């Protein structure tokens, strides 16, 4: 049965007030289209998890959707701090938020434990760092075989994962190439998964190259077709990262009025991603990726 639906429907069904969500993608394949729909539906009291909150969580925080942020590196990559996050932390604007912070390895380990349905994950980390002092969730465990003391972090099992992919079939079997971050772990760890795809393809396209399937349809609840759904993030082979937007955000987000004007124009002011793409026009099409195809492989036997 097809799981295809609109973004409005997918967010309406699988992101509720008070939920814990993860929109993953390390620089690559960050689903801004889903973040914008969450803002449009005015979700509140969310716990949002991501290694790198990036601009998408800066926007969710500034829009008042967030109660708690679980993360490992909070900045505008290559362009300074996240100003809406700082306003929330330092001044409680528009509301104060709680921070729960790890290192990247700690967040990866939390999602890996969550995906494997284990209670925690051991790692050689944090010895001598102040992070365990400010985050009591980072503990130690003694290896029952060697007696070595290891760091341990608890499983993270979000309510919903939102994963952007290059192509998927209507059941959610999804091909991803380029940087894969922790998307697989995030999807397997979450109770629900929304797959958002640049292209919807027949199942035969997936079956012709099964090694490229990062997310299997059996853990997917909803499939959304959303071309340019990552902008200003990127999709390898489809469009480049809009670095100019990330740099412009540094100035734009410093001022609450400018921040709100951005949301009014580009989030509340559009019906859906389709209208955003239409209005962006050549600002998006100029980012179209160049062509670099690889050699085909033979799956025959």
């Amino acid at each position, binding site marked *: 049965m097809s799981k295809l639906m609109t973004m409005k429907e997918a967010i309406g069904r699988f992101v509720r007030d008070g939920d814990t969500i993860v929109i993953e993608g*390390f*620089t*690559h394949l960050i689903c801004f289209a889903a973040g914008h729909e969450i803002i449009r539906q005015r979700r509140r009291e969310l716990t949002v998890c991501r*290694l*790198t909150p990036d601009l998408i969580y800066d926007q969710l925080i500034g829009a008042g959707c967030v109660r708690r942020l679980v*993360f*490992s*590196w*909070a*900045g505008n*990559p*290559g*362009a300074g*701090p996240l100003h809406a*996050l*700082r306003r929330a*932390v*330092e001044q409680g604007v528009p509301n104060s938020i709680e921070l729960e*912070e*790890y*290192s*990247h*390895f700690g967040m*990866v*380990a939390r999602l*890996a434990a969550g995906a494997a349905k284990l209670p925690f994950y051991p*790692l*050689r*980390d*944090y*010895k*001598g*760092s*102040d*992070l365990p002092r*400010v985050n009591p969730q980072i503990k130690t465990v003694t290896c029952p075989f060697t007696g070595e003391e290891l760091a341990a972090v608890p499983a993270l099992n979000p309510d919903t994962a939102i994963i952007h992919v290059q192509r998927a079939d209507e059941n959610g079997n999804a091909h991803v*190439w*380029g*940087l*894969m*971050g*922790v998307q*697989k*772990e995030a999807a397997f760890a979450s109770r629900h998964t929304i797959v958002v795809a640049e292209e919807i393809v027949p199942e035969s396209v997936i079956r012709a190259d099964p090694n490229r399937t990062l997310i299997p349809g059996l853990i997917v609840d909803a499939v959304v077709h959303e071309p340019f759904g990552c902008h200003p993030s*990127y999709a*390898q082979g489809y469009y*480049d*990262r809009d*670095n100019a937007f*990330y740099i412009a955000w540094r100035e734009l987000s410093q001022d609450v009025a400018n921040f709100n004007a951005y949301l009014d124009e580009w989030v509340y002011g559009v019906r859906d991603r389709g209208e955003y793409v239409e209005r962006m026009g050549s600002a998006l099409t100029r980012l179209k*990726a160049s062509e*670099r195809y690889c050699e085909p492989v033979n799956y025959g036997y």
Partner: protein
Amino acid sequence: MATEFTANELMICQAARQLRDDEVVFVGIGLPNIACNLARRLHAPDLVLIYESGAVGAAPTRLPISIGDPSLVTDSLSVCSMFDVFNYYLQGGLVDVGFLQGAQIDRFGNLNTTVIGDYAHPKVRLPGSGGACEIALLAKRVFVIAPQRKRSFPERVDFVTSPARPAMVVTDLGCYEFVDGEIVLMSIHPGCTIEQARENTGWEVAIADDLRLTEPPTADELRVIRDMMI
């Protein structure tokens, strides 16, 4: 060689010269990225660049603005998940050199990228660890590139994000190494003075008996750096 050069160019060269061919280096964005790509194009063509985003053996043809730039994927040797990067490559002991930066570095090599001031009520909230804490603990050697100011070189950092014991710290004034767990000025850059190094350190900094003058960048090094910066 009387060619003019900037402090950044000198720092990049100093870092690049420490990298040996065939080593595996965990690359950070900014100056470390230029240093690694400089080494790869000059004396260390077989240097393996790993980015925490999952690109292994990356060969970027443009200067990546972020650590997850698509140019790190195109023509790399392998692209793996971040689970693989941190578990198999870093914790697995395959990383020879890791680069770190910090808003503060102290007398003992600890780095702070979390907060200035108190954690609960910070004066400045910084980005946090990212991969820095585990790079500090799991890479065989750690290099730090950081501009040197009194407030960024305190005796003790406000928050220990990364408990590093760097093999080398290169600043815009000189190069430091750790002797008996304490930072020591080993060479001073051309045009800089010991007095400047003292004034920009938050404690009475130790100076090597055989203090040297840092080798300035060669014409070759400057040409490659400037090619990359365009």
